[in-house]
């Protein structure tokens, strides 16, 4: 669906250019193939903290990264997850060179400008990000409890990307320098330029600014072990956990480890999530919220990741109702699906949504999940920037029998993590037999 040209520079940098001249803007999107999965226990949160440091200036522009770009009319941001860190700018066409220069300077020459003052400031900012997005937010610690239970302590998905507070506090400037040297170099990156550019002119500019950056050393293996040994699913066994939180209504989470991104079973889980909770006609919305009115909301999603994924269903109890009633309805529905599978109309509906979603995502060249971000995602995770068509094809062949098998194979009570988040002082409202989740 997307036309593009890809070349790899001698230093290993993948460069992908996509032309679209509708609007006088151009998107730069730069992925580094590093995330919290590359961290060590006791040093969690470093990949994300490092992302913050990338905005604090580099050797030839040693002041805030935002100022020249906002002056040029750009929007910019970055994000980190378990598998990758991305940075993007959307600029007026005329400012492309400025954006490329700044990106190249922080790829090649960040460390001379990285001082302890900047490091300590951004560490404080990140601790406040953690407070705001997780600690001070209702149900905000759920993901930490779930990941810790779904993946064993030596698995790199055992911790969440924001990291543990003590680890963030213990991080040092030396850690940041070492992290940069290990992971921030052309051979571990993919650069997409999309929008109102001529491809040859774009490649020429990219070469001019990036080809002198030396290629780095090979990337250390994840978790200190070959990645392939992390692929088989960790099977946690039946686990019941609870957390007391500053919430009004209890919420239930059911989670399972599932096949990794693009593996057989991954697309099937997306379809199942939609059948279960996508829109008002979905099975669980109808049962829990519409008919029985025992829940205020229900959602399900396949969290597709590079090494392994997880499937999670969550629902909040309506006032006067208990989580055990929600659990029963959900488990019954999964049992029905494991016997009969979804019907043909449900699958068609789901596919219609997927196909529309693929098109809607093409609307913008930049930002999170715009065209440039998608080209990089496919390049990094599938080794092919043009993988979008094959990605969509994964959904087209899915039928009732396959989904029925997937449900019975993967979404059984055995191997399920069940988390209850209940109001403070109401531990008794958790699913019975739950033990406290150790989250700090």
């Amino acid at each position, binding site marked *: 669906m997307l036309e593009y040209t890809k070349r790899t520079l001698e230093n290993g940098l993948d460069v992908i250019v996509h032309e679209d001249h509708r609007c006088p803007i151009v998107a730069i999107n730069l992925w580094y193939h590093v995330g919290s999965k590359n961290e060590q226990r006791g040093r969690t949160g470093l990949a994300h903290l490092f992302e913050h440091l990338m905005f604090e200036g580099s050797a030839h522009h040693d002041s805030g990264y935002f100022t020249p770009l906002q002056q040029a*009319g750009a929007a910019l941001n970055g994000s980190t997850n378990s598998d990758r860190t991305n940075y993007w700018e959307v600029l007026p066409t005329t400012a492309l060179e400025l954006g490329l220069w700044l990106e190249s300077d922080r790829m090649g020459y960040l460390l001379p400008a990285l001082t302890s003052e900047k490091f300590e400031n951004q560490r404080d*900012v990140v601790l406040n990000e953690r*407070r705001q997005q997780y600690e001070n937010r209702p149900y905000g610690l759920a993901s930490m409890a779930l990941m810790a239970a779904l993946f064993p302590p030596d698995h790199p998905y055992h911790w969440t990307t924001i990291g543990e507070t003590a680890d963030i506090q213990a991080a040092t400037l030396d850690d940041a320098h070492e992290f940069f040297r290990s992971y921030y170099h052309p051979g571990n990156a993919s650069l997409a330029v999309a929008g109102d550019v001529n491809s040859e002119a774009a490649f020429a500019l990219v070469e001019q600014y990036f080809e002198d950056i030396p290629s780095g050393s090979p990337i250390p293996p994840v978790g200190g072990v070959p990645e392939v040994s992390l692929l088989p699913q960790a099977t946690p066994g039946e686990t019941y956990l609870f957390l007391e939180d500053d919430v009004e209504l209890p919420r239930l989470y059911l989670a399972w480890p599932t096949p990794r991104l693009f593996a057989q079973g991954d697309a099937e889980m997306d379809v199942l999530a939609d059948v279960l909770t996508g*829109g*008002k006609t979905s099975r669980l919305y109808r049962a829990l919220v519409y008919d029985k009115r025992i829940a205020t909301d229900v959602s399900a999603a396949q969290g597709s990741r590079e090494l392994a994924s997880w499937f999670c269903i969550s629902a909040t109890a309506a006032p006067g109702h208990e989580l055990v009633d929600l659990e029963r309805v959900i488990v019954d529905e999964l049992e029905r699906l494991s016997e009969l599978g979804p019907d043909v109309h449900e699958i068609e509906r789901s596919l219609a949504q997927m196909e529309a979603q693929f098109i809607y995502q093409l609307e913008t060249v930049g930002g999170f999940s715009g065209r440039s971000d998608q080209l990089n995602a496919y390049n990094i995770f599938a080794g092919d920037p043009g993988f979008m068509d094959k990605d969509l094809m994964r959904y087209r062949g899915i039928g009732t029998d396959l989904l029925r098998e997937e449900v019975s194979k993967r979404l059984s009570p055995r191997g399920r993590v069940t988390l209850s988040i209940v109001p403070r002082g109401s531990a008794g409202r958790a699913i019975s037999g739950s033990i406290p989740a150790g989250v700090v």
Partner: protein
Amino acid sequence: MRFPAARIARLASGLTIRAVEHLGPPVVQWIWVVPTGSATDPETQPGLAALTADLLDEGSTTLSALDLHAALDRIGARLGIQVGSDATTVSLTTLSRYAEEGLVLLDEIVTRPRFEPVDFERARDLRRSRLRQMRTVPGAVADRVYLERLYPDHPYGHLSIGTDESLSRLTVADVKQFYHEDYLPAQTTLVGVGALAHDTLIELAERVFGGRATGSMFKTAGDDSVEPAELRNPSAQVVIVDRPGAVQSELRIGHVGVARRIADYHAVLVLNMVLGGQFVSRLNRTLREEKGYTYGVRTSFDCRRWPGPFSMQGSVQADATVESVQEVLTQMASFTGDGPVTVSELDLACAALTRGFARGFETVGQVARGVVQLVQHDLPADDYDQFVPQIEAVDEAAVTAAAAEYLHVDRAVVVVVGPASQFAEGLAALGLGDPQYVEA
């Protein structure tokens, strides 16, 4: 780069359509705009407009709620209902090939809602549950208290969701009456933007909405909105919602701001950029990039039909609450005191706005929202063409004048949702009066 011109047509039924052909992926967005929002809530029934809007997609006279949603899902449509203070918008996005099917469903939703008692009760109960949950969301509590304090006895003084007391008393008859008296007859506009010719969009609207008797349904012209109760401009005050043990304080600081249709609107935009409207603003620079007290803060002038709130918003670590509040008040006062806007601040703010202008009109959704702004504020069709020259005309004197006119630190309302023991004493010493306490 110019904002694409809309073709305006008036159908025999009285409906106004504004159509924009926008090249790009095969996507169409329709937005139904009704100038009835939460400010139209009867004084004793806050939440009525939002509850009415919530019921629009709960079935029509010809389709049950589930049939309606099944039809939307089959074409991969995206429905969005938003209730603001001055308007309600219902947007529907589809692939271009489903433009007509989508519009037919939009018609079901906005002109023939079913208003079944059982759906009413479910929707109302869900809203009451949400209100209950909002008591533990610091930002939602801060927003509610802030509006209550800024707008006592004024239609802008409540969140669109209303209050539990009001929701518990509402009946399906109230909703029907509101819909027929305040909603349906209001001056309605249909905005259509997409990868279809202007004429095609207008023809589609004619086919779906044109077949009704002349003037039978939609008002044709005239803004008959009446200025609501006089604004009282409350005096300076500090209001605390105590959350013992919370790790951050959620802040709202400011006062009543400006309406959209003021002559110096563009100077206000520039002033806000410098104060807190962008990453490199004064407040974000000091509180985040120098002190590390927060993940980020911002200020905004919410420019409504009548003067909307000006506010600083952010979440800061609890032990830095007093210092952060002080910094906001100091910066608010500085423009007319010892820290007038500098040439480089002015340049940066203006350039960010003018050079960033083209980014705002890339997707059908962006263009459609742009047209909605024109409709909602009754702005001339060429308003966007004036944007760049108007911003460029803003000079230092204009920013200083805007600050003198529209920033009033002497009547700042300070709302803090956080652990009072850590800051109550310090806030009392600010000279804004003794802190008052309210419940979440």
